[in-house]
């Protein structure tokens, strides 16, 4: 019933998306510790790993969220395509923006990024010089490789677009809407999005420019 309806599915996307946003806020804050030096971030990482039960709880939630989010995304996207079998010869956008129209591309890009990212920094599989627990080392050495950083930056730009529309859209999906506060919400989600993404991008950039080594 709930999951079966477009509105219900969209609400699931919003909630799972929100979980993602929440995670990212914490994640970017943690990551920015690299600027304070190896000690800080490594101890922080160690602290995160200190309670495996909590850690795995969090990981499970994140995993479930991303999976639900993706499933819903694909199902709804299919539905939208089916709802207009014959397209227009001419179509002009008068209300939507670039971000809203590219959600279905920026999303997967972020998805692929996540997979790569886990293999990169969490398991180290694709990391030439990976040392479990030495986050500072992993990050700095990882970003030395210019095309790795480049990929990160590209992915972050996709994330920027995805969240610029998504973070606002999710409020509408769950109906957190009031003419009085709508402009406020839009401003808020836009700022969060920009801060988070700039925070992330700053790290590979800093490494490449040699601010941190």
């Amino acid at each position, binding site marked *: *019933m*709930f999951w*079966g*309806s*477009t*509105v*219900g*599915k*969209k*609400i699931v996307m919003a909630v799972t998306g929100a979980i993602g946003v929440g995670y990212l806020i914490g994640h970017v804050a943690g990551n920015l510790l690299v600027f304070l030096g190896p000690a800080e971030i490594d101890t922080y990482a160690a602290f995160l790993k200190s309670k495996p039960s909590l850690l795995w709880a969090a990981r499970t939630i994140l995993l479930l969220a991303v999976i639900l989010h993706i499933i819903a995304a694909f199902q*709804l996207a299919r*539905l*939208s395509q*089916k*709802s*207009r*079998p*014959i*397209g*227009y*010869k*001419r*179509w*002009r*956008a*008068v*209300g*939507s923006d670039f971000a*809203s*129209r590219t*959600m279905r591309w920026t999303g997967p890009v972020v998805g692929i990024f996540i997979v790569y990212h886990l293999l990169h920094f969490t398991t180290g599989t694709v990391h030439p010089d990976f040392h479990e627990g030495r986050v500072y080392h992993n990050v700095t050495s990882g970003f030395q490789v210019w095309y790795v950083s480049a990929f990160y930056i590209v992915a972050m730009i996709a994330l920027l677009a995805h969240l610029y*529309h998504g973070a*606002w*859209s999710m*409020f*509408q*999906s*769950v*109906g*957190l*809407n009031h*003419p009085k506060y*709508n402009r406020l919400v839009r401003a808020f989600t836009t700022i969060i999005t920009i801060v988070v993404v700039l925070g992330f991008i700053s790290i590979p950039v800093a490494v490449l420019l040699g601010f941190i080594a």
Partner: protein
Amino acid sequence: MNLTLHIWRQKNAQTKGKMTRYEARDINSDMSFLEMLDVVNWALIEKGEEPIAFDHDCREGICGSCGMMINGVAHGPQRGTAACQLHMRHFKDGETIFIEPWRSKAFPVIKDLVVDRSAFDRIIQAGGYISVRSGAAPEASTILIGKEVADLAMDAAACIGCGACVAACPNGSASLFTSAKIAHLNLLPQGKPEQKQRVLRMVQVMDQEGFGNCTMHRECEAVCPKEISVNFIARMNREYLVNSLVSP
């Protein structure tokens, strides 16, 4: 002025259609868009060609019969205006205009620019009403309704059921139409008793009819001749959430 038109011609639901080119000669800029099509049709008839079929009736922007994609925009370039109220002074001499029918799985083309919008009626049948038998109504002034609420309900009720929102939506979603009717009735005290069934059933039927989902593109709001706000969509989502999870 003179115009070049590219208009979708399709004999009936079974046959395939195609864009056909027409020249519209000495069009007066005071004509409405539909009057321009009338003139084109007169010329066609005199040439022994079948006139272009399009739905229209009131020509005052209120019945919701008319509607076509004009250069890729539902109801054409002027905001808050139905095709019948659009005037040719908004076009330049020598301009090329593409005219296509609403495109949606739920709105199959019947002929040329005429589509079948009965899906909207079925959405209303699913709860877009208040169950009151003729004669069963209490004295009108027994229930007071604040002006703000009444006005907001009226904003939603202004929908003319033209289908432009569906036609313009990249997802082919009928959310604006459906949410406007839900909001109109659920806002009013008279509509409260049935508000749960209303939102749940109307959304269900909206989905069954094959419309897409809303991802907040806001194309619908931009083309709506009555400028119905997408805030009503958010309201519908909220009521759907509340009524399907909590509430008796």
